[in-house]
């Protein structure tokens, strides 16, 4: 790295620790005005050494007796706050921040945010609407829940069942997410996936929210519209979804109050049913997957990681953060979306971007790689896509239909 590339930070501002390794986050932090340090497993060490990235090694496993050690280390270094980048580091951030800020409640809060069942209970207690849910410890629990949910819906024997959703307690997003419709399908769940959280299926429009919070107030609220869950998302949303913004804002404020969130960044998911009722799905205290941060940067021009550092840093002033964020929706230069590509064929040999995609005015770029293996493993759960394709354009409806249409195209042939 050249000398001119060295970070210039403002000594008046906070010193932040990034928990987990994310190149985009580190890169953003490096050109921001806050001093930072990366806390990541030791495999990140050679890269950090090579590029003079400030680094403290730490292996994030389950919290244990040594957890205090990293908090003490960071405290001695003068770190003001830690920021979780991944689901697995959320509880670590809670534990560390409770030491750094001398506020033991933060740890309990983090544990709530880490466990999907606890999270739902807490939401329910706070008067937030959630669907029917239950923990399952084995397959029998799943069959019972499936039957009960469908009885509640006054289904008769032989009627097609409403599906239920199974999710791991503590994994991010779609990882381990399964949809179960019949008792037969229960057998396909491997035993090691238990315990899981079961939820009734909500027919409605699913969307996500990204909210930056400072001093208990929302500083920026984005609504991410899913075109198809697990495939595509775009920001800002269509006017049809944005019309719920006042109601959504009220819901988020309720959530902030219920979970007692003073600062930082949350990423909840909701359903809005046809009658306009909002159902809470889950909330995460970390950046969303699917590169929503990159989409926001393209649509609004601000760096979402910088926003996150501001929202976490206790030394951030009200004026500073207000000046940082643009005005929602009206300040957007356009709509940015991305599509996650899954190979559609069983055997693929190479990557071929469909001409109609590449030639579309809205097409921006892709990060797909050539296939390493010819056979595609069958998708059991929602799985991981092979890479994202980015689009950007003025008209949200064209963008939405374009994203939907990508599902019918072959990117791997």
């Amino acid at each position, binding site marked *: 790295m050249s000398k001119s*590339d060295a970070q210039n930070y403002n000594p008046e501002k906070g010193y932040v620790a990034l928990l987990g390794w994310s*190149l985009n986050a*580190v*890169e953003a932090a*490096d050109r921001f005005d806050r001093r930072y340090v990366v806390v990541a497993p030791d495999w990140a060490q050679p890269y950090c050494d090579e590029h003079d990235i400030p680094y403290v090694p730490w292996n994030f496993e389950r919290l244990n007796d040594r957890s205090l050690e990293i908090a003490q280390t960071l405290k001695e270094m003068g770190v003001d706050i830690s920021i979780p980048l991944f689901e697995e580091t959320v509880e670590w951030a809670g534990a560390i921040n409770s030491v750094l800020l001398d506020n033991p409640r933060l740890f309990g809060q983090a544990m709530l945010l880490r466990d999907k069942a606890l999270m739902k209970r807490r939401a329910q207690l706070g008067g937030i609407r959630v669907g029917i849910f239950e923990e399952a410890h084995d397959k029998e629990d799943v069959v019972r829940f499936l039957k009960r949910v469908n009885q509640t819906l006054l289904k008769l024997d032989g009627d097609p069942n409403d599906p239920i959703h199974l999710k791991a307690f503590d994994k991010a997003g779609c990882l381990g997410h399964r949809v179960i419709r019949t008792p037969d399908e229960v057998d396909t769940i491997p035993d090691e996936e238990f315990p899981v959280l079961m939820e009734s299926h909500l027919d409605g429009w699913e969307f996500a929210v990204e909210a930056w919070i400072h001093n208990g107030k929302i500083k920026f609220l984005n609504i991410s519209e899913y075109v198809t869950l697990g495939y595509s998302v775009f920001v800002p949303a269509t006017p049809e979804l944005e019309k719920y913004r006042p109601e959504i804002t009220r819901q988020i404020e309720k959530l902030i109050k219920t979970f007692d969130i003073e600062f930082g960044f949350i990423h909840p998911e909701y359903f809005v049913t046809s009658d306009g009722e909002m159902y809470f799905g889950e909330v995460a205290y970390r950046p969303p997957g699917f590169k929503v941060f990159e989409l926001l940067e393209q649509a609004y021009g601000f760096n979402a990681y910088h926003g996150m550092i501001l929202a976490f840093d206790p030394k951030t002033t009200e004026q500073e953060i207000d000046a940082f964020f643009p005005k929602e929706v009206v300040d957007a230069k356009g709509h940015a979306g991305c599509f996650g590509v899954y190979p559609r064929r069983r055997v693929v040999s190479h990557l071929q971007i469909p001409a109609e995609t590449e030639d579309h005015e809205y097409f*921006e*770029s892709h990060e797909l790689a050539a296939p390493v293996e010819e056979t595609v493993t069958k998708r059991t759960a929602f799985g991981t896509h092979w890479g994202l394709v980015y689009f950007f354009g003025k008209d949200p409806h064209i963008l939405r239909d374009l994203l939907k249409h990508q599902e019918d195209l072959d990117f791997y042939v």
Partner: protein
Amino acid sequence: MSQPEEYNLMEASKLQSLTEKLDRAIDSLSQTRNFAKVAKIQPLFDIVRRVLQQEGGCAVVEERAQRLEEAGIFAGSDWAQPHILIPTLSTFSLKSPEPNTVVIEALSELRLLAVAMGDYIHPTMSREQAHHFLTQVLAINLELLFGVAGEAEREQQGKLAGIPRALFRHLAERIGYEHVIDQLIEEIWRILQQRPIQVDSVKQMITQIAICQSNPDIDLGASGQGADRLISSLYGPTQACREDPGVAVYLERLEGMDSGALQYEATGFARAMHDTGLVSPYHAVLLRYLLNHGDHLLAEGMGLSSTGRDCLLCYADLVRALIDEAIHPETAQGIFGLAQLLERGILYQPPLAPALWRQLALPLSAYSNERLALAFGPSPSARAWLLQGVLCMLGQPLGVGQGNNPTCQSARALSMWAYNDPDYLLQMVVWAARDDEIIIHFEGQPISSRDSLSGVATEIPLDLDPVSMLVVPHLDRIYAEMGRRCIGRPGDPHRWVNPEFHGWWSGRGFRINVDVETGKLDQLDDFLRHFYASYHPYYNGNQPLIHPQPAGIAVTDSAARFIGWHAITILRVSLDPREVMRVYFFNPNNDSGQNWGDGITVSTAGEGERFGESSLPFEQFASRLYIFHFDPLESGELAIIPAEELSEVNARISRSWGVDRLPANELQASPGTT
């Protein structure tokens, strides 16, 4: 608005919107911290590719060349150091099926264009250097500038193939066609001095020049003067065919000539042929016509010296039969092969004449017929093509090339046999062409090319001479099978494979300076001293090398970085005209004039080389050698080389391919120089 106008407007607005995306992508990369650039480069590559695929895209990218480079698009790649780039490699990059490779190469050329035009002051490349580099690239890729896209290109690259073509049109327009031509002519002469068997690409380039010269829209200025000899040697070497009248007209003219005029024609053709190594189709017409005349005119028509003429007189019937069967306007290049064959005097070896008679009457298998027809066309006949190939290989054993295939071992073997054991080569040709099977024994066990399924090359090569085309696939499989039979033996399999594969004269003694297990250098001093003792006349009792010996080279690039292991043949070691001890060797790749970095440039002419030989001063050669063979019965006393010379060779190794291979203890002995 008319439809084409509307279309143009649409295209223009598309380029406009892509240009905006390009600008955004450049800004985004340049704002990214250095350590994260690599991860963010792909979108920029993509958008550059899409811009280049638009009409006018090259100009857009050229204008942004400096910003692109400063944003870091070349970071971490060879292209970041334009001064080490090699023009010849551009062809492979631009023909790659991999979009990023095509894009980065095109980008690099456009960047150098901006430098050459003075729009971009580059830290490591001067205007003149950039200009020089681009003219070379243009010259080498002239077929991309003028030719039409081949089937292979389309098949491999699809839509990408448009990029190199648009790039070269843009380059030529900006640089000026006249600069391209002179460079190209120089390049052609350099290649021809190596007298390759395959001259199709050279002929193509000469044809391109001829087309350029006759196109009134291209102003060549004062350039292109040196092309006359090249063009005339193909299209009109003599007075009677000066204006390229066509073979039928020329034959008519011959029929009206007296022997004085015929003699004049014969001398003219011979001079052109020996000047350039190229043969005009008219030459074939003449030679066939001279079959009905005396041996004197025939000898004259091939430009034979007294050796060649004697040979012709001794084997007049055979030579006439060879001409009759093999020499046609399409296969005219065989005349040069035949002339060289006669000059070598190898017909005096007892088996050779009967073997060539056998070749003349050889029935080809259906498969061989099909392969030859596929590669060379139906006319005159597969047999004539093969026979022409045989003449060329026997006449120009060092003109064998491996084409664009990883089969240097097989090409080396063919060249070695043609050079040292020509009747064995003819035997191989018969087995391959007639029987579709070659059997070579390995340590007493027969290996059939039919039973061994896979060779080194995964595809059947088509860019070879007729003999290589039929024989190489067999040899390649046998070679690979020999390697497989050595699996599990300690050390390098070439120890056993080379002598069994090439012939009894390959020394059974074997020396390698790399430990196969660790990849580290091993007993380097002893290796070098042994090599000097075996090959250097000052250390081996002034014994010239008797038989060609296989050897292995660690090939390095112009920045002296290791590229790969390569098979060559050591032919002789002797003093050059300037009294420097040189190793003369055969390199089966297609153009041996390579820059191996650290001041080592392989010479192919002007240092006492015979046609097709490469050469390097002895110690420079020793610094790239990693395998050699020797006769274990010769005294193996290690040479006492002056310490200075030994350390010089050692230093060259550790500065180049040996840089990561120093054994641990040596590293401790000499701590880093930084």
